[in-house]
């Protein structure tokens, strides 16, 4: 299986992360994700810096998750704005504890270099992972996040535009379809999930 070296590498990476992570992360990363956790999906991704990572490696911090594609000029920029708006509504300490995952529908065109540029354009700092994966994995990620999409003949995509709030174990705590504005339900869920101190 081609996934084996990748898994080994992930294991090494997560060991390194364990050594560096604050104490509250340890328990979450070592405990198996519960049955209703998105992290039970075995999915390998690659981020805007070309780093491979397992979806389950995001365990341990509250997460905002959605999907997009870079050449989308209608709704996708609004998804980034929506995430920023909801994060701004949080106190700074809680804001810093939240991680963001944006998975592309379009792995052929959204190379790491393109994802990097997109991250810069949308002011995404190191809390953000803009990710690509093979098409089969993208379908699975969409299925666990409740997102629907289809590729059109002209290379564009039709897709639903929701942002999920995942708790540290990967359970979906809230979902919003409100674009470009703060959704009080998202902010409330994140306030409950994000650690208050640092």
């Amino acid at each position, binding site marked *: 299986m081609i996934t084996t070296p990748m898994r080994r590498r992930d294991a090494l990476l997560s060991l390194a992360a364990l050594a560096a992570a604050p104490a509250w992360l340890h328990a979450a990363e070592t405990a198996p*994700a519960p*049955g*209703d*956790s*998105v992290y*039970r*999906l075995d999915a390998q991704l690659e981020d805007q810096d070309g780093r491979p990572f397992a979806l389950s490696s995001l365990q341990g911090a509250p997460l905002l998750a959605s999907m997009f594609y870079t050449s*989308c000029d*209608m*709704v*996708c920029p*609004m998804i980034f704005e929506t995430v920023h708006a909801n994060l701004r509504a949080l106190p700074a300490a809680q804001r810093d504890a939240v991680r963001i995952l944006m998975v592309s529908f379009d792995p052929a065109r959204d190379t790491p270099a393109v994802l990097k540029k997109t991250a810069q354009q949308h002011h995404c700092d190191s809390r953000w992972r803009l990710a690509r994966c093979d098409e*089969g994995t993208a*379908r*699975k990620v*969409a*299925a*666990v996040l*409740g*997102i*629907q*999409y*289809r*590729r*059109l*003949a*002209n290379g*564009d*995509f*039709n*897709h*639903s*535009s929701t942002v999920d709030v995942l708790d540290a174990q990967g359970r979906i705590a809230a979902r919003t*379809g409100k*674009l470009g504005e703060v959704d009080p339900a998202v902010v409330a869920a994140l306030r409950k999930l994000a650690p208050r101190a640092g």
Partner: protein
Amino acid sequence: MKRLVAVIAFAACAAAQAADYVPLPGGRFESVLPQGAVPTASAPVDMQPFALRATPVTVAEFARFVAAHPEWQRGRAASVLADARYLSKWATPLLPGAAVPASSPVTDVSWFAAGAFCEAEGGRLPTWLEWEYAAAADATRRDARKDPAWQQQILSWYEQPTPATLPAVGGAPNAYGVRDLHGAVWEWVEDFNALFIAGDSRTQGDPDKLKFCGAGALNIIDRDSYAVLMRIALLSSLNGADTTSTLGFRCVRPVPGASS
């Protein structure tokens, strides 16, 4: 007669044991769903050749799969990947038992579990287009969809209530040699979450219209294909972890030399 039925059942079983895949040639195909950039106009697509399982995956085949892949046994599969109804009629997590005949199509399986089965077999679930392309054929013609008699025959299958115990796989082959596409069970497709339907009057002026990005969702082009439309409606309503007692699957494999 009884003996004949038994022989046929055995033959079907043996065929399924070998996981028969039949090759389908590529060709021009007009889906009931628009494939072009204009959602209201039909645009034919060029299908690549592929190999499709001749019959749906059976209970016996799925039992062998969960024996070899314990993470997909009932009670072990994560609820995010298979709901509480997953394989619920089986006597035990490993043994289907007398209530679930071994040569019937397996049902009560989620999209994730179905996809994992196909991957273990070196394939994947068919796309909607691949399924629809294969299902357009009747016994002699590759595309019989315009024939009212064929439409009527399909509808008459769907009009029959689903029996409590599903019949064994191995119905009459279509022009490609594929069986049981209509009648026995519904089937998962790889891109079930691409089949969202909107773009009708209900979404006009809807404050929620930004739910879908792009040129709106699907329109239906051929409104006479009721039976196929029923499938799309069902698939578009499902989540990947959902299971139902009438929803099974089959797999496709790439054919050598074809680009996918």
